[in-house]
């Protein structure tokens, strides 16, 4: 036996908590097809009944002003819910407000039940709800529960098992009996014509009805509990200290994502490195061994390495959401971010981008407005992520003298300038996208402000688990696949590639200890990846790069930090150099394959810096953008605009300076 249960309700009524309680770890998160709005479903069993649980986004009412609301309305109007139960989740503290949407949903004519959450808070606030009377008034089962205290879940199970008959509420909000019979098509029409007068009339009648339903069912004894939220808000929303606190919180999160994550990341690095070594030794030498060690395992290592950052970021994100602070961040930052088409909630993901764009893009999922979420996703990779640092430092060492200006080292100033450039470009790009992307919705103008609450760590745990899982399972696949492709392009090549060993071993002028390096050099210059590098040479020539640098740029598609290592192999140096100054000396010695001049002078160096600042050379980001937007179009637009910007900036810099 199967039954579908659909959770509907306003924002912040505890739908997510109930969803977690009911389905445990059996959850799937995804997107609604074609849009950046997240979708959640779960499954569980009550006795022998298999339940499919759908969590719809929290909405204000059935007259959509955002894509979320339209999705919910469309879902309710088009999905076959004849055998399903619509479980409406309401808040005991704010029952009046909840019942507006409830009465609208009930009038659509589904089998509906009302589950009122926050029983614990209601008791504290002296709110008494007589569920029997309310059930009589609303003509459907009504129960009280608390998702936090885990009380009343049995009653919800009982509700789900029942067959609840469809009963209409007596008040007719339309102009005729006919319309009332077909409230579904009435509401559809009302939203198409947008008859504001009719909507207002419905609002007045509904609120009158709600007053009547609540009258004999709810009593509020004035409690003397002080309103902690209001006191806290005086501080957290203070026009000065509010911002200081917000900046401190962001700084702490940034430090954590960056720093705490570095420990597990080192372990993973070490562990995966050892695993790759072991598999190299254990497997018989040959193509298969290489494929497993350098292709597959390296690809998996590239996925696993992201887990600490993603998990830590989502922990903090969950914490901010759970405590109710996130809405305050929106309140404080809304004005600034609105100017560039984003949202107060975009600030946290953007800050996280300094560490890595991958968790940052995933974290945009909490931005309800789809246009703002899309813009945040599109611009987040412009922020200087940690993978760019090795490239920046080496090139800056080569092209900027070790001198100081007004007491500041020039090299440090240059690095700072690169960070600043990233931030400024992010805001400009966001502003441009704001102008380009059209939506039919005005940005929300009502932000519900939930009370501060002690966070529920179980909810945060589910949040971390779901996001990490979905990263590994979805984006992870693409990352592993691309790593293997790049590996294959590097490990096959022309005749010279295949004879590399022979050439070097029979060449007596090369001392023995340098033979392996010489083999690697010949291979890297003659692989298929190098062939592609040579083919695209005409394209990168105007930027001042030779084909060798082309190989580095191409290999960086896997991840930017690969550039330095790849170049060292191409230049025939030892692979594992730690000291950036020493590396930069090797770079400084290289000559340009075409001009014969220095390969890394100020012009080519700056051109490279700009190229790396803007181009989207990171398949993990591409994979995550695709996963989060579910749109090839936007994934392509992001790649093309960033790479285009990189090319033009590098071109201008080189042509002006050469």
């Amino acid at each position, binding site marked *: 036996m199967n039954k579908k249960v659909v959770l509907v309700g306003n924002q912040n009524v505890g739908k997510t908590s109930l969803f977690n309680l009911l389905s445990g770890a059996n959850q799937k998160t995804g997107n609604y097809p074609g849009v950046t709005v997240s979708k959640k479903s779960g499954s569980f069993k009550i006795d022998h009944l298999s339940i499919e649980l759908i969590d719809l986004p929290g909405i204000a009412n059935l*007259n959509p002003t955002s894509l979320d609301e339209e999705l919910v309305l469309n879902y309710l109007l088009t999905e076959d819910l004849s055998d399903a139960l619509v479980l409406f989740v309401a808040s005991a503290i704010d029952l009046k407000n909840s019942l*507006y949407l409830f009465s609208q949903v009930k009038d659509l004519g589904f089998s509906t039940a009302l589950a009122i959450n926050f029983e614990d808070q209601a008791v504290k606030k002296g709110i008494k709800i007589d569920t029997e009377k309310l059930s009589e008034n609303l003509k459907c089962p009504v129960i009280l529960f608390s998702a936090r205290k885990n009380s009343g879940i049995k009653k919800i199970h009982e509700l789900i098992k029942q067959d609840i008959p469809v009963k209409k509420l007596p008040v007719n909000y339309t102009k005729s009996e006919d319309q009332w019979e077909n409230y579904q098509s009435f509401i559809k029409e009302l939203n198409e014509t947008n008859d504001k007068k009719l909507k*207002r009339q419905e609002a007045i009648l509904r609120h009158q009805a709600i007053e009547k339903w609540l009258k004999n069912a709810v009593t509020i004894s004035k409690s003397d509990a002080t309103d902690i939220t209001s006191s806290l808000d005086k501080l957290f*929303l203070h*026009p000065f200290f509010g911002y200081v606190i917000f900046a401190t919180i962001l700084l702490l999160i940034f430090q954590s994502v960056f720093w705490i994550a570095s420990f597990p990341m080192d372990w993973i690095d070490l562990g995966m490195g050892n695993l790759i070594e072991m598999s190299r030794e254990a497997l018989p030498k040959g193509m298969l061994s290489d494929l497993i060690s350098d292709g597959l395992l390296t690809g998996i290592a590239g996925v696993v390495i992201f887990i600490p950052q993603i998990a830590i970021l989502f922990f903090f994100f969950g914490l901010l959401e759970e405590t109710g602070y996130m809405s305050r961040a929106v309140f404080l930052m*809304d*004005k600034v971010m609105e100017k560039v088409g984003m949202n107060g909630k975009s600030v946290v993901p953007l800050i996280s981008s300094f560490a890595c764009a991958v968790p940052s893009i995933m974290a945009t999922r909490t931005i309800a407005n789809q246009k703002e979420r899309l813009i945040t996703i599109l611009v987040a990779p412009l922020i200087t992520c940690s993978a760019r640092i090795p490239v920046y430092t080496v090139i800056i060492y080569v092209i900027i003298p070790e001198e100081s200006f007004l007491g500041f080292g020039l090299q440090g100033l240059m690095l700072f300038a690169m960070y600043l450039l990233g931030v400024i470009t992010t805001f400009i790009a966001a502003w441009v996208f704001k102008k380009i992307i059209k939506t039919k919705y005005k940005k929300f103008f009502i*932000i519900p402000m939930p009370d501060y609450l002690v966070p529920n760590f179980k909810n945060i745990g589910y949040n971390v688990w779901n996001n990490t899982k979905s990263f590994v399972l979805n984006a992870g696949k693409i990352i592993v696949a691309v790593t293997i492709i790049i590996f294959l392009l590097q490990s096959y090549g022309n005749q010279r590639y295949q004879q590399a060993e022979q050439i070097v071993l029979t060449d007596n002028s090369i001392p023995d200890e340098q033979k392996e390096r010489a083999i690697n050099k010949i291979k890297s210059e003659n692989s298929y990846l190098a062939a592609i590098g040579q083919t695209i040479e005409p394209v990168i020539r105007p930027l001042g790069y030779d084909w060798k640098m082309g190989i580095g740029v191409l290999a960086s598609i896997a991840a930017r930090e690969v550039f330095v290592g790849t170049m060292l192999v191409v230049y025939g140096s030892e692979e594992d150099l730690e000291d950036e100054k020493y590396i930069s000396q090797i770079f400084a010695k290289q000559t340009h394959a075409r001009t014969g001049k220095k390969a890394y002078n100020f012009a080519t160096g700056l051109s490279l810096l700009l190229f790396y600042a803007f181009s989207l050379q990171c398949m993990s980001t591409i994979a995550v953008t695709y996963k989060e937007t579910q749109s090839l179009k936007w994934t392509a637009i992001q790649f093309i605009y960033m790479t285009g910007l990189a090319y033009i900036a590098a071109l201008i810099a080189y042509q002006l300076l050469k």
Partner: protein
Amino acid sequence: MNLSKQVIGKRLKITSITNEEVTTRLSELGMFEGAIIKKLNQAPFSGPTLIQYNEFKLALRFDEASQISTEIYE
């Protein structure tokens, strides 16, 4: 005086709303002309206004708050 300019911490009565869209949205929340609200906070630089109606706290953008006329309610 319009809501965005009102003093923080006072109980206010909505006297009129000039924008039809805003009127409709607020009426869905049960806020009609004559409703008593409380202004809780105002973000600087023409940022949002935080108000409370019954148990419900919500923020309105500056543009919308500017279209709501209010008077101090004793």
